[in-house]
């Protein structure tokens, strides 16, 4: 059971690239239906001309990651665009990014992780001393986040109030970490994609889709973009290839 974020970002080629971006996004939408996954559109940024500058979706279902992770990278299309008046062949690109969707952040605090500090008398405390200092300082040890509370006259109330705030701050901190990780991963994928060769070419004149990692070509671009059996056959092949190569690596390391 996996969850992932899908991002489609337009690359070189202006309006034509944006149109292609939209087509690829829809291909994955159909593919999700084909594989019985859930596909929830999160955001779409349209360009004039009807294409997408970028779009993102949240996918969930069984076997998602194994199939979709190889889709990240640059996809290239070669065709005569609808906007082209002189029949010239254009090459445009778009980038697909796939990110594991974070699991729900655990908002609860374990009391064992929290240090509670209250007024300490110089000598003996308790009955020995009169104090009006009901301040409480709570420290979440794993993160080092601290909350000091002295609004109330009762220490008990200060503790309760402080815990609420501490809980919220720890949650925010956890969320920020996760968000930063996702942003970093997204940047990394885009960067890698920009520096690398395209992973797949969609060539209209020759009516073929070639996956460059496998050196595999299937015929029928329009049919491919429908996002059912043709796409599925390619993702299957990529999956098998990955399993084979990791098996090979494993065997190699065992022989050493």
């Amino acid at each position: 059971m996996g969850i992932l974020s899908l991002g489609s970002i337009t690359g070189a080629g202006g309006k034509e690239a944006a149109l292609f971006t939209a087509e690829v996004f829809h291909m994955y939408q159909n593919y999700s239906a084909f594989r019985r996954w859930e596909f929830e559109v999160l955001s779409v940024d349209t360009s004039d001309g009807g294409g997408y500058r970028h779009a993102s979706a949240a996918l969930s279902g069984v076997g998602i990651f194994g199939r979709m992770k190889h889709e990240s990278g640059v996809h290239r299309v070669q065709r005569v665009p609808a906007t082209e008046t002189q029949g010239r062949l254009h090459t445009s690109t778009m980038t697909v990014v796939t990110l594991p969707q974070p699991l729900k952040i655990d908002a609860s605090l374990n009391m064992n992780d929290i240090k509670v500090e209250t007024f300490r008398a110089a000598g003996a405390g308790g009955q020995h001393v009169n104090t009006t200092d009901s301040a409480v300082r709570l420290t979440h040890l794993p993160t080092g986040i601290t909350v000091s509370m002295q609004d109330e006259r009762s220490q008990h109330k200060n503790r309760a109030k402080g815990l609420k705030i501490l809980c919220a701050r720890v949650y925010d901190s956890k969320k920020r970490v996760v968000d930063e990780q996702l942003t970093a991963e997204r940047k990394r994928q885009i960067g890698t994609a920009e520096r690398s060769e395209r992973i797949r070419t969609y060539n209209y004149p020759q009516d073929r889709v070639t996956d460059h990692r496998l050196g595999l070509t299937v015929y029928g671009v329009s049919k491919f973009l429908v996002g059912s059996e043709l796409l599925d056959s390619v993702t299957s092949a990529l999956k098998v290839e990955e399993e084979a190569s990791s098996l090979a690596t494993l065997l190699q390391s065992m022989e050493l």
Partner: protein
Amino acid sequence: LVYRPLGARQTSALTIARALKRKWVKALQAEGIPEPELAVKYIVDHLTRSTNVSLDDLVSRAESMLEQRRRRTPLQYIIGEWDFRNVTLKMKAPVLIPRPETEQLVDRVLTSCRLASRGDDGWVWFLDVGCGSGAISVALLAECPQLRGVAIDVSTEAVDLTRENAIMNNVHERLDVIHTTIGNCSTLTFGGRLFDILVSNPPYIPSRVLAGLDPEVLWFEDHRALEGGPDGLRVTAEVLDVAQSIVRKGG
């Protein structure tokens, strides 16, 4: 989040508070009074919260209260009330002022209370030995609706204050307050009942240590609530002696 502009009263109160602080923190520190800033803060807070205090009155009342503090009167007695857990209690000398640590004692008792099963009469019963201001009893009753209790103290002031605090917090119908000694407990029938829980915060300061305590404690609070004999444990021992005959099996 909505920011409401401070009213005229509150703005003036702030100015007054700052002036009082400047003057009195110094004055209190000169006498070696602990927590001088808290004293000013709580006195001003208390006065500004009482709506029937005019701003002119505020200054003169604050000054007289701070003068009391300068003479070592505990803040809680000056203000006449303090908070304990989620309840507000009236404070009156010489009845012992509840300590913050006692708030945690109530936590432990609450755990037992929630685990205890109701008796035939539908209630879980506790006995509070040495109730003082009634802090423990009132807090327990306020936080646990299935509780009923009996509170005892040797001091008539304590018994009166506990009754007042129970009424103030609307738990008086579930609390009987009795002026008696621990020793008498085993002879008192309490309606033939045995208690599910016995709770007590008895005096535990050894006698020879007493004289060395801060004036706030030594001069103003009831020594009967503080002194526990040579080793500090005399009263605790008495409570434990009596416990056997008062608490039911498994309590």
